[in-house]
């Protein structure tokens, strides 16, 4: 081996030995890395196959078509014990997506309020916001979920002594009960009107922007847009004769019937996720607003822009550029953190799929890989969006 390299060095015209050539060294190094990683994987796969053969675990995804035989606390799609394991996967996935979506909504709302409150000129409000951030950011999320579930929601009164708000919303140890909307057939017209309103106001905004670029004339886009998006559906709703009734939850026997019921596991998870993530979002919002230097506002005033326009055209676009990337990664964190649902038994993907299904079938490799793949796909999608946004809003420098 060493003879070969020596003879190769003798033939090259340059005087550097081949092992000092950077290209050669990097090739050798990469070959070593590639071979060792490949060897590592071969070793692991080999061991896994042997181990599984010895324990009598069959490989493959055949188990997806078997009957699951266990019930799930909450499902967005039709599901009972007779459905397949494949369907439990989708039940879990949908539950994960539901809690993530609701959590993102609540956390964003709360986070923006607290972030702005943190910058308030009112000393007391700013202090309260700061205290909120410091308290909830520094306590583990799992602890907060357990606290809400076992210490708060389990201590709620029984259905007969429910806490109620206006006799419409009821909160008790069995969960949260809300009036459920019961749309009639004609309600689809309202939905169509809503979608139409969004599309037309989008088109109007584009037209107005173009016209302003050409002529300088402004058009009240915001008002027309609001009128179209809210006014049009309301009008259709009234014209079609209010085709929506509400089903009220009512106490029957030992529990509430009717209405929309939210299981306490979901309530606890949602509370903890929103409160915890809101503390981080608040800090992001604060940093984003502070990142727009005061000179920008002053320059905009000097150009004669009114304060509302300054905020809309100068401060917010620049603040959003700082806010959006970390905000998306917080959304991603929230989605991943929703997997802690398994601690309180909310049937999310990890609890239903990597928990119950794994225990019943023993298909550890397939199930864990599928679970990880789901989260990986979600996070890759979100980071693709983030990269696209970053590129779109990056400062164009000389």
């Amino acid at each position: 081996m060493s003879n070969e390299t020596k003879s190769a060095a003798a033939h090259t015209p340059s005087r550097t030995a081949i092992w000092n050539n950077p290209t050669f060294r990097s090739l050798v190094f990469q070959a070593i890395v590639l071979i060792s990683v490949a060897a590592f994987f071969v070793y692991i796969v080999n061991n896994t196959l042997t181990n599984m053969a010895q324990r009598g675990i069959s490989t493959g995804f055949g188990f997806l078509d078997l009957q699951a035989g266990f019930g799930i606390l909450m499902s967005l799609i039709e599901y009972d014990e007779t459905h397949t394991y494949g369907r439990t996967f989708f039940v879990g996935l949908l539950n994960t997506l539901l809690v993530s979506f609701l959590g993102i909504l609540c956390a964003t709302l709360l986070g923006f309020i607290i972030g702005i409150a943190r910058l308030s000129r009112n000393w007391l409000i700013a202090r309260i916001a700061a205290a909120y951030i410091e308290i909830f950011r520094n306590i583990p999320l799992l602890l907060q979920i357990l606290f809400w579930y076992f210490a708060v929601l389990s201590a709620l009164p029984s259905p007969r002594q429910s806490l109620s708000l206006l006799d419409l919303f009821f909160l008790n140890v069995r969960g949260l009960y809300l009036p459920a909307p019961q749309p009639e057939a004609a309600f689809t017209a309202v939905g169509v009107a809503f979608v139409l309103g969004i599309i037309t106001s989008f088109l109007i905004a584009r037209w107005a922007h173009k016209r302003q670029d050409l002529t300088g004339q402004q058009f009240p886009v915001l008002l027309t847009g609001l009128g179209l998006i809210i006014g049009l559906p309301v009008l259709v709703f009234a014209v079609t004769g209010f085709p929506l009734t509400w089903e009220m939850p009512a106490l029957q026997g030992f529990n509430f019937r009717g209405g929309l019921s939210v299981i306490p596991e979901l309530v606890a998870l949602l509370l903890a996720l929103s409160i915890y993530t809101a503390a981080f979002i608040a800090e992001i919002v604060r940093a984003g607003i502070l990142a727009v230097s005061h000179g920008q506002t002053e320059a905009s005033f000097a150009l004669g822009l009114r304060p509302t326009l300054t905020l809309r055209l100068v401060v917010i676009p620049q603040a959003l550029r700082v806010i959006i990337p970390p905000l998306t990664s917080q959304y991603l964190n929230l989605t991943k953190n929703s997997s802690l649902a398994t601690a309180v038994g909310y049937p999310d993907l990890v609890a239903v799929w990597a928990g119950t299904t794994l225990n019943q079938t023993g298909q550890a490799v397939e199930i864990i890989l599928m679970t990880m793949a789901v989260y990986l796909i979600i996070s890759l999608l979100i980071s693709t969006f983030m990269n696209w946004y970053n590129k779109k809003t990056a400062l164009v420098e000389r």
Partner: protein
Amino acid sequence: MAQSTATQTFERHADLPPPVMAVGVLGWLRTNLFSSIANTILTIAAVYLLYLAIPPVINWAFIAADWVGATREDCTSGGACWVFILARLNQFIYGFYPELQQWRVNLAFGLLIALFVPLFVRNFPNKAWVGSFLLFGYPIIAFVLFYGGILGLPVVSTDQWGGLMLTLIISAVGMVASLPLGVLLALGRRSEMPIVRAFSVAFIELWRGVPLITVLFMSSVMLPLFLPEGVTFDKLLRALIGITLFESAYMAEVVRGGLQAIPSGQYEAAKALGLNFWKSMSLIILPQALKLVIPGIVNTLIALFKDTTLVIIIGLFDILGAVEAAIKDPSWLGYAVEGYVFAALIFWIFCYGMSRYSQGLERKLSTEHNR
């Protein structure tokens, strides 16, 4: 123009005091709490909310609380039952570590503190030696003390470890192991070698894309399948591997941020001096890059510390696990709030301390202009 020719002597009037409403307590109140009608309403609403929230909490936690006793019968006053915490304190701190051997844990943590203090003292001689002993020598001593087996110390198996002690062990190991791994991954991600870069990117994105809980599930369910027959891993070690790999990916991204912030002139200067890759990294680039990302590193460490609670899901008893077990104990039913508040307080103290320390460091190392 006035045409007055009469000479007027100018007499300086004594300075008037500032308006009462602009200075002192009143002035402060006016500018900070009651500057406008909306602000006044906000202040009053906030005060009212605080009035609703704070006194009952203080009453529950301190005034009406029970502090002394041994059983739940001693909790009679209706406030918090801290007796429960005091009675279970040993379990919360040491888990199921045998009581007679607990001096070993105390000694190990005492030694840790004794070694840590000099690092915070300015101008302490031989800081580097203390630091490297802490990093390389101390873990061995600590492991011997915790696990035993030699020097006549009886073996305490890892499933008896628990409570705060386990939380601290997991986070310390995670912190110490994930930083170097993260630096290597960050260097790999910025490497010019395509294969090395591809592996680093794949590794980082894989771990960052999945929740820690699936990583822990994987390490507890799949790791035994990966190993050859007969080789078994300790449950704690499996969790440690999972946490370290997971956090090192986050650490790598933080370090990468620092590496990107170093101007390319520094890389070129290091090359011009004839330093090879490792020397230029360890002497020129990394010291600057790591200094830049100290806040990010500490944030990752705080996240790691909070994430250690997840080990209860795979059946390890860290402090939260110990509290959970104590809450479900039939002889102490109904004191969940006290248990969680205690655990939350412990975590809060550690995390808040770390974040304050990093803010202080940031201010100390900052070279920017402050308004």
